[in-house]
């Protein structure tokens, strides 16, 4: 297989000092995810192909077979099996990675619960696409439908963010014994080439310690039984300990992002507030690549802000509240939904509403972009116009 992705962008070499111990490459989002798995020294990749994830596993298989990546790569028989193999290897104490999309994630749903309840640290990439009727385009319904599996979820705005977030996610996963899903947009990210600063692997090593089997791993000399029938009082307590760790995610993720910024020079937060202040009258709320479009549009509106949600699960309630605390009481919030969850409001609205309980803001929901429907600047303009004039509580934009 020809590697046409990792072309060196020699024209930008003069900028190479911007991030020491990095190389600047042009790569698609999917290759950024594969590259991150390599940089994190993943030892096992069970894989099953699905559009638009395929180039992630192709790239990983290529890197493993060429010796560029020291890992075992296994072509599995389904996503259910791929995630179950990831479960097995993680229980064995290995650092594992797999990637999927849409139906693949839906199919693995049962295993997602098991991985989470086994408290297995791992990171996966999901390239968001919705359910049948067949649609391979960008949509977050697949991963949002896994909100309640116990997985941490990050949504990446750019290929750079996908790569950086995966590195941070392994640390978060291994510190809290929780699985993490990093979600990227189909095609807008997965198959779009961007400039990406790729850190040297020894820099990643300084940030992310080597994975070694722990006291809760399979150990021949100290055998254990994992996952047998658990009576109610024990099961209840198990969930309590899970909850105790899950509620630390928000703070821990910020801490890890801070440490990452110190070492790598790029800053991330659970949420990002853009132009949110006392002068702001309307705040768009976005995840993933729609954020980039909205960033461009709001530049000409001094009274419009943007709240980007990067950590989606557990929903960063405190971060959201803090970001919005400076708003005037009559500010309006407008989530832009690239999902449909079978309910009246979209997933962002639902989560925002519980984060906003007790806060005075009015919120109107805007469905735009499900099934990969493009959300260009003009659609963002329409949402702004609608939000400022005569919004319904729930609005579908651009339905012809």
């Amino acid at each position, binding site marked *: 297989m020809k590697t046409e992705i990792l072309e060196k962008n020699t024209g930008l070499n003069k900028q190479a000092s911007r991030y020491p111990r990095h190389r600047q490459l042009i790569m698609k989002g999917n290759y950024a995810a594969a590259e991150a798995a390599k940089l994190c020294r993943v*030892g*096992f990749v*069970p894989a099953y192909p699905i559009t638009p994830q395929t180039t992630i596993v192709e790239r990983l298989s290529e890197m493993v077979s060429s010796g560029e990546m020291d890992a*075992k790569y*296994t*072509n*599995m*028989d*389904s996503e*259910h*099996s*791929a995630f*179950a*193999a*990831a*479960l*097995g*290897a*993680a*229980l*064995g*104490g*290995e650092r*594992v990675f797999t990637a999927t999309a849409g139906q693949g994630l839906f199919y693995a749903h*049962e*295993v997602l619960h*098991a991985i989470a309840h086994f408290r297995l640290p791992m990171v996966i990439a999901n390239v968001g696409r919705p359910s049948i009727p067949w649609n391979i385009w960008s949509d977050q319904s697949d991963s949002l439908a896994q909100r309640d599996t116990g997985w941490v979820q990050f949504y990446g705005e750019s290929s750079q963010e996908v790569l950086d977030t995966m590195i941070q996610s392994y640390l978060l996963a291994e510190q809290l014994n929780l699985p993490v899903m990093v979600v990227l947009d189909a095609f807008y990210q997965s198959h779009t080439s961007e400039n990406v600063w790729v850190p040297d692997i020894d820099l990643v090593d300084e940030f992310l310690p080597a994975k070694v*089997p722990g006291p809760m791993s*399979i*150990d*021949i000399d100290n*055998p*254990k*039984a*994992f*996952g*047998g*029938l*658990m*009576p109610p009082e*024990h099961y209840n307590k198990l969930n309590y300990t899970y909850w105790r760790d899950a509620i630390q995610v928000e703070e821990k993720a910020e801490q890890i992002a801070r440490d990452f910024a110190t070492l790598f020079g790029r800053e991330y937060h659970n949420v990002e507030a853009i132009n949110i202040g006392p002068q702001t009258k309307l705040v768009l709320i976005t995840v993933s690549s729609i954020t980039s479009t909205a960033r461009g549009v709001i530049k000409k509106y001094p009274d419009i802000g943007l709240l980007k949600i990067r950590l989606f699960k557990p929903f960063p309630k405190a971060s959201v509240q803090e970001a919005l605390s400076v708003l005037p009481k009559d500010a309006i919030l407008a989530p832009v939904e690239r999902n449909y969850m079978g309910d009246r409001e979209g997933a962002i609205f639902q989560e925002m509403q519980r984060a906003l309980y007790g806060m005075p803001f009015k919120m109107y929901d805007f469905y735009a972009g499900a099934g990969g429907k493009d959300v260009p600047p003009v659609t963002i303009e329409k949402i702004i116009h609608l939000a400022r004039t005569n919004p319904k509580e729930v609005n579908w934009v651009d339905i012809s």
Partner: protein
Amino acid sequence: MKPANDFLIRDEQVFSGALSCRGCGWSLLVRHLASLLGPDTVYVLPASCFSIISGPYPLAELKANVVHTLFAAAPATATGIRAALDRQGKTKTNVVVLAGDGGTFDIGLQALSGAAARSENIIYIVNNNGAYMNTGIQTSTATPYGAVTTTNPGEGYKKSWPKDLMGIIAAHNLPYAATCSLAFMEDFREKVTRTKNTEGFRLLMIDGPCPPGHKTEPGDSIHIARLAVETRLFPLFEIVRQHYKLTYKPESFLPVEECLKYQGRFRHLFREENKAMLEDIQEHTDNTWNRLLALEKLANVIA
């Protein structure tokens, strides 16, 4: 076959006390299996009777590591465990799936086929008791023709033949697969030893006595298991790279009734109006046996 008297377990790998029903085959099977495989073993259990028998939290029957996993996912989970152990240099550790027929013939078949086709270095043990016994005797595709279950009740007894799992497994070109009976313990132990000493994906299918499911007397379990072999309802054979070899050929063929009559699940077959069904079962059994003989001959021709 000469009676053997050196079956005594020398290296006990289970704790005393098991939660199996009286006359169940699982405990006997696992006790011998575990003693032969030794402590350097990781067991992987999909949902099955043995999930319970092996001990609810915090109990454990087996002394080795046990990983309970999802019904459809045992061979895939085992694949991951194998990968982790291999990465850590523990290539000699046995990774062993202990599954029932539902988890093998039905919901786990895809994962089983996948692991077998990848030649994963895994041992797969299927205790075939011919139904979903743990959930209360519901029909699986291993359930014999004519058997009554709670989902084929009364006159709705099962009217289709069970899946030929060993044929499916043979098609995967495995280094070793065999059928075993707890009534032929020496043969069983030899097959386990051979399995242990072979590399790659290996499968043993054991005829699983189940008094509550088969409606039999617990004390008759081994006797009925022996009759299943003697009537050729459960032939004992090995498959090495698609080459079949019968490991036991009964000297005189007992009619199938001799085994079926002890089992309440077949009681209705002995009514006058169902005589043709018994004949069907005999004919199917004869055909299967003759087919196995032909496959054995074929193996000799090719070899």
